[in-house]
C-alpha cells in the first residue's frame, strides 16, 4: 500500500498548475550531463530524472543495504508499466526537485548537493506550509522507500523472516471453481 499514487496530484494542489508549467519549460538535460544513468537502460525516465531519483535514494536510505541506482531503476520500470498520469507527475516531481523552480529558490541543483544538503531540502519540503511541496515530498519519498524496502536484502535491518510461502508448508484448501477456461 505505498503512498505513491500520483493521479494528477500536482495539478490538484494550489499552485500546482504553475509549478508543472514551470517544470515543463526546463529542458530535459538542462545543459548538464548526468553520468549516473550511463550504465542503465531507461524506459521512461530521462538521465536527469534518473539521477534525481538516485540522489534522493542516496539521501533517504542511509544504512539500508540497497543500491540507490537499483531503486531509481525500479522506479523507472514501475512508471513504464503504470502509465499516465502517474508517469508524468513523477517526472515533474523529479524535475522540480532538481531545479526548485517556483517551489523553492536554490542556486544549486539537487543532484550536486551533498547528502546532508539534500536531506535538508527534503525536510524543508516535508514541513512546508504549502500542500504542493508536501505532496511532492510524499510522492518521492514513497516511491523511494517502497522500492527499497521490498528488497529482501533489507531483512537484515528489519529482521523480517519473510512471508510464509517461503518457509512454511501449509496445505491449501481445495476449491471447485466449476471449470476454468
Amino acid at each position, binding site marked *: *500500500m*505505498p503512498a505513491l*499514487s500520483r493521479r494528477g496530484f500536482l495539478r490538484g494542489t494550489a499552485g500546482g498548475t504553475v509549478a508543472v508549467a514551470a517544470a515543463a519549460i526546463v529542458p530535459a538535460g538542462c545543459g548538464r550531463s548526468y553520468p549516473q544513468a550511463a550504465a542503465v537502460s531507461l524506459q521512461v525516465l530521462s538521465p536527469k530524472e534518473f539521477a534525481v531519483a538516485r540522489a534522493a535514494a542516496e539521501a533517504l536510505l542511509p544504512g539500508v543495504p540497497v543500491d540507490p541506482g537499483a531503486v531509481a531503476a525500479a522506479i523507472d520500470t514501475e512508471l513504464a508499466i503504470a502509465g499516465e498520469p502517474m508517469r508524468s507527475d513523477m517526472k515533474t516531481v523529479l524535475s522540480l526537485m532538481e531545479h526548485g523552480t517556483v517551489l523553492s529558490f536554490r542556486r544549486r541543483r539537487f543532484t550536486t548537493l551533498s547528502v546532508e544538503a539534500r536531506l535538508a531540502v527534503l*525536510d524543508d519540503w516535508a514541513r512546508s506550509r504549502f*500542500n504542493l511541496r*508536501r*505532496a511532492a515530498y510524499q510522492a518521492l519519498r514513497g516511491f523511494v522507500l517502497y522500492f527499497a*524496502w521490498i528488497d529482501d536484502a533489507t531483512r537484515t535491518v528489519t529482521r523480517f523472516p519473510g512471508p510464509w510461502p517461503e518457509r512454511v508448508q501449509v496445505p491449501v484448501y481445495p476449491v471447485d471453481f*466449476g471449470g476454468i*477456461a
Partner: protein
Amino acid sequence: MIIQGAGRTDAIRDRADVVVVGTGAGGGTLAAYLAERGWDVVMLEKGGFFRAEEFSQREEDAMADFNGRRGLDSTNDNAVFLNYAEAVGGSTVHYWGDSFRAPSDRLERWRREHGLDWMTESELAPHWGVIEEELGIHITPETLFNENNRLVRTGCETLGIEGHPPPTARIDCVGCGWTQFGCAYNRKTSQLITTIPRVSRAGGRVYSDAAVQRLVTSAGQVTGVEGALLDRGTRAPTGSFRVDAPIVVLAGGALGTAELLLNNVDDDVVGRRLYINPHYFVWADMGRPIDNQTGIPCAYVVHEFRRTRLDERGRYEGGGYIMLTNHQSPAIAAVMLGGTGAASTERMRRYRHLASVMSVIDEDLPGRVFIGRDGIRRTEFNVRGIDQLKAIDYLRNASRIFLAAGAQEVWIPDVYGTVVRSEADIATRITLRSVQPNAQFCAGSHLMGTAPLGTDPSDSFAGPTGEAHRVGGLYVADGAALPGSVSVDPSLTIMGVARWIAAGIHDRHGRAGA
C-alpha cells in the same frame, strides 16, 4: 465457468438474464443468489483471476496483480491513498475479513434521511444470517490474537475503554499475517472462493480481465454492456466483448461503478459524495519483540469512540471513529512510518518491536469522484472541519492506549516526527498540523456512496429497490449504493444489501429470461 479474458483477441458475444459488473462483496453475493435460483448469470470483472497458489504474500506481487491502479491510486492532491482491489473476488481478496452488521443507528439515519424504509435490522437480519453462515463468520478467537492485539486490549482494559474481538470471515485460519495480499491457503472466505465458484457451478459465466466501458440502452432501458478484454500485465485492450441482458447490476466498487456511470449516464448525483473512512496509523515502540507481522491483522476493535459526541450547542466533543489493530508488511510500513533519512531507517530497525492501530473515521464531510478533462477518473477528498477534530481525538486516544499498555514511545508518523512519551505530550504535541493534507500517510479503503440509494432522484441515483431512477433495468448493489458511511467495515453491510436487492429482483421479475 471462469473464463479468463486476458490476452484474448477475439470479440466475445454472450447473452444472459442478468449481467453483474464486478465480482466483490456486492456482486458476488447478488450473483450467487440469482444463479442458484435458476437465473442465467454473467459476471464481468476488470481484474484478473488469481488462485491461492498464486498469492506469494510479497508486496510487489499483490500491488501489481490486484491492487487498483497497481497500488498507485490517490486523491487529486495526493493526500489520501485509495486502497481497493481489482480481481475476481473484488476487494474481498485483500480485505481483512472484519464482518460487522451495520449499526442500528446507521440504519435509522438512512431510513430517516434517505427514505429507505426497508433498511431495518429485522429486514436485513435474515440475509446477514445466511451470509454469516455461508462465510463461516465468527467472533475472532483468542488463538488468533497476536501480541499487538493483546497489548491494545490491555491498554483498553487499563483505561476502561470498550473494545471487542470482531466477527471475522475465515475458516481454520493459520494466522500467517498476510491476508491483505490474498489468502494463500483458502482460509479467508472471500468471494473468490465462496460465491464466485457457486455462480460458476450453477452455470454462470465469470469473465476476468473484462473492463466494461459502455452501458447499452434503448428507450430508457438497459439492454447490455460492452467493453474491452485486457492484457493482464499491461492492462492494454486486446479484444472486446458484448453481453446482452435485460438487467444489469453495477457492483464494481464505489470508484468503478461511479466511473462507468459518469461515462454513460447523465445524472449529476453520481460521484457527488464519496465516503472513504479515513485511516490514520499510530505506531508504538514496545521495546521488545512484538512480531506483529504474524497473526491476523485485526483481532481487536476499539468501539468506545464510534459515536460522535456533540455538546448541547452542537460543538464537537469527541469520538466519531473506531480503531482497528493494524499490521503492515515491511515496505508498506516504511512508507507509513514517516521520517526522513536516518530517522526512517531507525524506525525500520525496530519493525519487529512495533505495535499499531489504525482509524476508521466516520466522516461527516465526503469527497467526490469525477472524470477529468483528460478523460481519466479522479477523486477529491479532504479530511477537514469536524473530521480533522475526529482524527486528532483518535491520535490522542490511540496514544493513551499504547502508553497504558507499556509503550516506550508512541509515533504519530507525521512530517514533524511527533513522538509521545507521556500524557502531557498528548495535548501539546498532537495538534491539527499533524492531519493537514500530506502531513502523514492517510488511506481510505471503505469506499462508499457514489451512486446512492434513496427516494429523492435529486439526491440519489437509484431508488430503494436498487434500480436506477432514470434507467430501467439498471441496478446498483455495491459500496456505491450505500447512502453514507457505515462507521465500521462495510463489507457485510454491502453483502446484506446486495442480497436484499437480489431477492427483490427475483421476486419482481422471476427469472427474467424464462
